[in-house]
């Protein structure tokens, strides 16, 4: 006696969160059954293995049918085939697009291309996440990227509107899309200590301040160049950043800057002497990063540079986070007192974001 066909269809579609998780994690039906057995479900419910098998199959089939709709979440809302309460729909979407920290760190900043997709085997082996799950997550990134790529307006809002994510998830995806678009390097060994959260935080600041969209809704040039307002860094702004070079190139200016900062921070900083000794190096580092951003290659290395030129030196001198904050605040504010420096607004746009990023990046 073999079961040829075995189905259960409810007027309200039954969603078992536990099975959904197993499915998303890419387990086969038999693995999922084994995992459920191990979780003790048989003892709790008095069910038999056959019942569990049939139940798991049923759920997998349902998820498989739902997957097509999940690729365009608004469809899930409007479709008529599966009657699912709104809260459950939200859960389905949210979980489907959720990603693993380990996975996203591997992919973040990489081009979402076929080439990367081919590497998923390695990522799977490295992270212990099933290949199936890796593929889903990768495809999700790519899908979201494709949809919002050409859109105007706020990146996070666009994502939210087209994929019906929660606020949090939409912002995470905005970061992923932003990183993928700008191809920031995140995989270097030096950067391994950083979490996705750190990068997402920086991405958000950069989107807010450094992109075209950041300048305000109407950059007054209605030409199509301005289309990807939130995705691309403001080229003009990057060009302008060269002007900041004067801060380190002009020796007088640099000395003045240093003395003003030191005066203000004397007695307030635990690592004052180290700061004093390193000031020029640090300042050179920060300004040079800015000046280099005209080249795509250097944009990609932004985080590597920040860590190399600032985070590592401070860390090796054991600066406490509080001191870093004090220093950066003072360092950027003091520039306003440099009479010979004319690019105050530019400096603020650059430094406000950078300061936020650096503080976030500064940890072990």
């Amino acid at each position, binding site marked *: 006696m073999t079961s040829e066909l075995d189905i259960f269809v409810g007027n309200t579609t039954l969603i078992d969160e536990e099975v959904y998780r197993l499915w998303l994690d890419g387990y086969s039906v038999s693995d999922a059954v084994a995992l459920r057995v191990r979780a003790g479900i048989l003892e709790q419910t008095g069910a038999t293995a056959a019942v569990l098998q049939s139940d798991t199959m049923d759920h997998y*089939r349902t998820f498989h049918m739902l997957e097509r709709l999940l690729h365009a979440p608004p469809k899930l809302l409007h479709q008529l085939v599966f009657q699912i309460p709104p809260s459950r729909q939200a859960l389905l979407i949210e979980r489907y697009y959720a990603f693993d920290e380990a996975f996203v760190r591997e992919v973040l900043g990489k081009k979402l291309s076929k080439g990367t997709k081919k590497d998923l085997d390695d990522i799977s082996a490295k992270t212990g996440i099933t290949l199936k799950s890796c593929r889903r997550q990768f495809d999700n990134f790519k899908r979201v990227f494709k949809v919002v790529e050409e859109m105007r307006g706020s990146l996070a809002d666009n994502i939210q509107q087209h994929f019906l994510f929660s606020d949090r998830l939409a912002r995470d995806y905005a970061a992923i899309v932003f990183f993928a678009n700008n191809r920031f390097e995140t995989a270097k060994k030096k950067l391994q200590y950083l979490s996705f959260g750190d990068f997402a935080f920086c991405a958000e600041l950069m989107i807010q301040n450094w992109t075209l969209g950041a300048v305000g809704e109407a950059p007054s040039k209605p030409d199509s160049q301005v289309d990807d307002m939130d995705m691309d860094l403001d080229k003009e702004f990057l060009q302008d950043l060269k002007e900041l070079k004067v801060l380190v190139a002009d020796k007088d200016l640099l000395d003045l800057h240093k003395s003003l900062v030191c005066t203000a921070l004397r007695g307030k900083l635990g690592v004052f002497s180290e700061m004093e000794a390193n000031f020029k190096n640090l300042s050179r580092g920060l300004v040079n990063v800015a000046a280099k951003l005209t080249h795509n290659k250097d944009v990609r290395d932004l985080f590597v540079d920040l860590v190399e030129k600032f985070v590592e030196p401070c860390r090796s001198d054991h600066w406490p986070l509080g001191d870093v904050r004090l220093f950066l605040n003072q360092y950027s504010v003091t520039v306003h007192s440099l009479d010979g420096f004319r690019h105050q607004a530019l400096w603020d746009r650059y430094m406000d974001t950078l300061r936020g990023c650096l503080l976030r990046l500064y940890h072990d």
Partner: protein
Amino acid sequence: MPGKLKVKIVAGRHLPVMDRASDLTDAFVEVKFGNTTFKTDVYLKSLNPQWNSEWFKFEVDDEDLQDEPLQITVLDHDTYSANDAIGKVYIDIDPLLYSEAATVISGWFPIYDTIHGIRGEINVVVKVDLFNDLNRFRQSSCGVKFFCTTSIPKCYRAVIIHGFVEELVVNEDPEYQWIDRIRTPRASNEARQRLISLMSGELQRKIGLKVLEMRGNAVVGYLQCFDLEGESGLVVRAIGTACTLDKLSSPAAFLPACNSPSKEMKESPLAHPPSHGCRSTHNSPIHTATGSRLTQNFSVSVPTLIYTGMGSGSAGKEGGPFKALLRQQTQSALEQREFPFFTLTAFPPGFLVHVGGVVSARSVKLLDRIHNPAFVGIMGNTRSYKLLDWNSFNSDEPETRDAWWAEIRQEIKSHAKALGCHAVVGYSESTSICEEVCILSASGTAAVLNPRFLQDGTVEGCLEQRIEENLPAGCGFCHIPYDELNMPFPAHLTYCYNCRKQKVPDVLFTTIDLPTDATVVGKGCLIQARLCRLKKKAQAEANATAISNLLPFMEYEVHTQLMNKLKLKGMNALFGLRIQITVGENMLMGLASATAVYLAALPMPGGIQIAGKTPSDGSYEQHISHMQKKISDTIAKNKELYEINPPEISEEIIGSPIPEPKQRSRLLRSQSESSDEVTELDLSHGKKDAFVLEIDDTDAMEDVHSLLTDVPPPSGFYSCNTEIMPGINNWTSEIQMFTSVRVIRLSSLNLTNQALNKNFNDLCENLLKSLYFKLRSMIPCCLCHVNFTVSLPEDELIQVTVTAVAITFDKNQALQTTKTHIEKSLQRASTDNEELLQFPLELCSDSLPSHPFPPAKEHLESARSNSGIPAAQRAVTVEKASPMGEGNFRNRSAPPCANSTVGVVKMTPLSFIPGAKITKYLGIINMFFIRETTSLREEGGVSGFLHAFIAEVFAMVRAHVAALGGNAVVSYIMKQCVFMENPNKNQAQCLINVSGDAVIFVRESELEVISTQQPTANCQQSCAGGEVTT
């Protein structure tokens, strides 16, 4: 020209990509009714076209309005080649044809293709203007309301219950026409869907005519079925109960009239009759059919077997003359009818007087080819000819089918008579077809009815009052209707344990729901008897003979199993009994389901005793006593589980039971000689008669085992196949309707009856276990209306389909209420009686509905400008104002919700929705779908294919209900699910037929709010975009 049908195509969405190059579609729509077709413009390059068409107007006969479905086809325009069909929508406009139902059909319908399934949605608005037509000879029956519900629908009151209506229509099955060889599967499927749609429309119209003839205005318990006879054709047949219904008027009346939810719930499965025992017959031993047709029309009938419970003495002292009078009266009322049958399973209070027991009849027939005159052809998608009206034609084909059924009904009638009853309630008919053999079955519950509802108010009050007086609450229906001295079958009678005045049988079997006023002890449970019998493959007559020889044995054994299982549960009555016999190539399957309860009025059931024939062997005896102990333990456990602790009644009060014939019931294997051992082994049920099981032969051994292997549902779960579970009355509002299908393949080697039985048993048990597991999050809950259907699609395949609804209930309350339950029900019963007396008799006289047509429909039109009115609000306004004023209320109070989330539509096989009040019936839903695939593997194999299809069927039902303005389907039933596969060719096909009543319900909690401040627009409807103006 009595009707104008108006259709507007608003928009489409989620269309499939039809042009690979552009990834878009150039869609347009064809709207077709009868022979007229309109087209919309082509909406270029969009998957979400906005046609916003003009109103397409069809001027048609109301006869056509009833028969024809509206057919909407979405196509992709192609400049160079033929346009590709995307899919179709069939809309049954019947609900628009009577005044109280829906006034407009408007909403998103899934676009369905028989090969690809659902492909996007289309927004359509449909209206009908009817002109009153006084032609007395009209062929249409617009205005007659149809209900699938097998009780008097909520918000209506039965003025008269006229009785049985039936009709059948025959045609050639397009799948078997010669043209099928040259047309595509899609065309063939569509021809079939369309034909069946037409035939159902025609059938419904004809039944409507019969109802009008009887001066009724509605059909309740309408059940329509298809017989796919293959080569020999397609039969669509329907039965129902004609009634004159009276709408309980204003919404204000709802509250008092229907009372609180819980009470109301009880009202629905209203008074049901009792029945005892079961008397069954089949037609079988071979009488070769008489008549001219000789071999073609071969029919076998099976000798009548009478089993059952016990029955007995004529009613108590005062019963005599009164009973006779009553009988006379009822008889005269019923005698005018050819078949005093009622498809209802729940009745208005006082309707059911006594119940006699189950009556059933079966007959085995050989199908012969229906000679179809060529002109009946339904070619492709165009219907060029009227369907042949068989009755008016001289072909005797439908006559044959009619005659077959008439024969069976006659038999049922005579069985009922033998039980001292004039009527049959809870009546149903079914068929099982395999190749050219067909088993026709009919069953019902013999009953004595109160004549008051049956005729035009001629019954005078005095008799009625006497009936009321004489009917003790809660047990009257159990009292035997037949003569004690002339019992139709051997039975044990005792005085009723409730009133002590009249005789009752010791076991009662019925096909109806438990009457609400019945006093029940503890809770009920689902009981199933399952049985397989191998049969040799044979042809024609030999085959039919073999089948009819097997039938009596199957019936007998099914009955034995039921009886044993009933005893094992410690209960004494079965409700909702449904015995299905399915015929396959090489086997017969029997599946009986029923809900067992303990009726307080009936005696406590005896236990089961086991006896061996050879008492000499010591170890054997030990074995037996071991088994006996196990059985007794199980009974004790069950009693605890189902809370069966009837109040102890001392023997004295009961009086010495009727001088008992000292024979034990001989239902099972005949009692053995070894009665000594029996008494010794009798552990706890000594006082009562016990069933004796002889386990000498292996068969019996197996029986005992199977008795013990039925696992009770896990704690927190109950199940029943009736509307509601006896003993649970505090339902909460969560419901989950589902369909589950399983097919198993038997290993063909060495199949024995035993192995087969075991497989079948396991299949059903595992299916139940799976259901319990899947629905575990709803605990505490009850599976209600559990409906199993067995079919044998191929040699070694068994298919079981289950539809049921899981309803949650409040456990804490349950505990409290069960304690006081008995008292309560007594109280309730008495109030019911009072209400009864106030039943206005005058109403009976004006039985003809005064306005068969909705006179105000034109008004509505002119008032226009109504569109996305939320269902709830619509309900209110409709109730509030006369139809004339309706339009005024319908201003566009609800702006079309932009992000139209799809409105929730509940589906349930029950006639009610827990915690809610049904405020309006919108019409019957009766849909037939075919789905076929030639890429079975790609669609996830058979399971993936059928899963998707059933989900789509649900979706289409919901969409139609939503478009009618409804938010639920009640009395939903999947009448057919025929699944065929051919894995080698990577193909499968499935046919599904579903029906139910579309309704609007309002939550109890919302009810007050709405009735005070009415236009509380909660946007339930997915709005029909745009204005709906002419």
